[in-house]
């Protein structure tokens, strides 16, 4: 019983240390010890030593969104395979055919995207 609580004591110690160390180091000790002398150069963004250029908020190529949309659409449909697989035995032939129709429609969606040249990266 004692050792049981001891192990919790260790976890508690780790928790306290884990919280105290970053707070102490970053928020209390750091500002006290470091010299405070900001210049414009120091305040610029660090970009491997070269002059920073462009905006931080860059616009991504719209094609990323198309891939993301495709992924979302197909990814979520796969969820339906799980309940189907669990009840596969009792569903019988009808269930199998129905799932094949479902997957066929998904494949049709993929063919559609392919033919509409969504999958090409130009």
């Amino acid at each position, binding site marked *: 019983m004692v050792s049981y609580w001891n192990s919790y004591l260790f976890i508690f110690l780790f928790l306290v240390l884990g919280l105290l160390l970053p707070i102490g180091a970053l928020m209390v000790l750091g500002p006290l010890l470091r010299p405070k002398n900001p210049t414009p150069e120091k305040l610029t963004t660090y970009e491997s030593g070269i002059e920073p250029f462009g905006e931080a908020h860059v616009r991504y190529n719209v094609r990323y969104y198309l891939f993301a949309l495709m992924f979302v659409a197909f990814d979520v449909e796969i969820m339906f395979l799980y309940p189907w697989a669990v*009840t596969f035995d*009792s*569903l*019988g032939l*009808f269930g199998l055919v129905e799932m094949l129709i479902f997957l066929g*429609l998904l494949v*049709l969606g993929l*063919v*559609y995207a392919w033919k509409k040249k969504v999958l090409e990266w130009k």
Partner: protein
Amino acid sequence: MNGINGVTQLAFSDVWRVMAPEILLVLGGFLILVLDLFMNKESSRRLSPQLGILFLIAAFVMTIRNFGLVSDQTAGGTGELLNLSNMLYVLDDFGNVFKLLFTAGTALVLLMSIDFFKQNPEVKVAEYTYLMLFATTGAMVMASSLDLITLFVGLELLSISSYVLVAMRRNHAKSAEGGMKYLVIGSIASAMALYGMSFLYGVTGQTNLAYGAQTVIQMWLQFKPLLTLAFLLMLIGFGVKVSLVPFHQWSPDTYEGAPNPVTAFLAVVSKAAGFALILRTFLWGFSGVFGDVYIYLVILAALTMVVGNVAALSQKNIKRLLAYSSVAQAGYLLLPLAVLGKGKSIDNIWLALGQTSFYLVAYLFMTMGAFAVLTVVTRQAGNETLEAFRGLWKRAPFLAVSMAVFVLSMAGMPLTAGFIGKFYIFLGTINTEMYWLGGLLFATSAIAFYYYFGVLKAMFLKDSAVQSHDKIQVPVSLTVTIAIGLIGTLALGIFPDLLMKFLNGLHWFGQ
């Protein structure tokens, strides 16, 4: 249909018997999709709408066959509905009537669209057509499912397809804006309805409305606040879809931004589907306790009639005017259901369903016709204000007279379908002794006359703003649409018994 391990076994023949029109439309949609991938552009553009109309007509015919199946079942059956998977999906005349409405409405919309495709070469015809077919399938599912899950899937199939249809014109900023507004408001509405459904499920322990209704009655006293909350959330969600006040804000903007045929689709098919969903959910799920919740429907119906008509008074844009008018019509359409809570007997339910359906059919004819006329006139004038209609009588008498008939029918002039529809609804309010609602119906119709009169005045009394008095060319497809609308509106206005007899003889919920 025997159950093994709690899983219902289905056979393909059963599925075909119960949902033939839906299957046809889905097949048609995918056929158009595949053909579009493998055909050249011009023939796909030409063929897709024709194929779409063909499949809609096939679905229409199959629905007519289904009326026979339902009456066979009631004549020789065990009193049980024709259904799939333990009442998940049913075949009854309520669904059949709505399916006729949806297929006919979408076929007319596609007919109107043929001209729209010619004017807008950037619109992708095949995608437009199969989205229409899928949206109609969603509407059909909403009309004949009895399970919250399937009802929700149907609702979203319709909604998501319509979001895309509204935003279809890619180089048209208003179109995208209208689509975005519809999408945001529509999604919030779906989430609210879904939240309500989750409480209904939580209390009854099942998603089926037919079985859940019994549990709702048992649980009503114990869980009244929770069930009322579920009812209200669902009412808000569905109310947005049929644009009841105060959830109508999206409709004028979306109607203005959408292409004309899509606006007609939203105004007729989408709205009818919303009402099918409302009637299905509330008349089944809350049938036992309807007397306790109908008051919210009465309030919404009254608000909708008043605000819709008053807001229409100040509209200069003809599409926005029709949008507000369609908001007001939603109020009239809700009345028969709303007054049911007062006098709650079986006869009243069938009468109320008859009234709603009759008004929806009338509404279908006059709205389709009005939007077809609107398309021609606004294109020729180059703007969508009332000014475009000035002097139409001199430029195109046929268009002017048809528009006059449609507008008078919307206002409720005798000898038109709109009057008969409103009159039946008025009788319903008298039957249930809700006289003030009947009075409100009359008062708001009087307001409606005022703004519809503005359209009439512009057409017949004012001179044309356009200098040239040359004749307006009306494309064939639009002429057919206008003619169908005109014949329907006048025929139902003069011989209402044609439809009313049919509606009164139906086995609405299979009984």
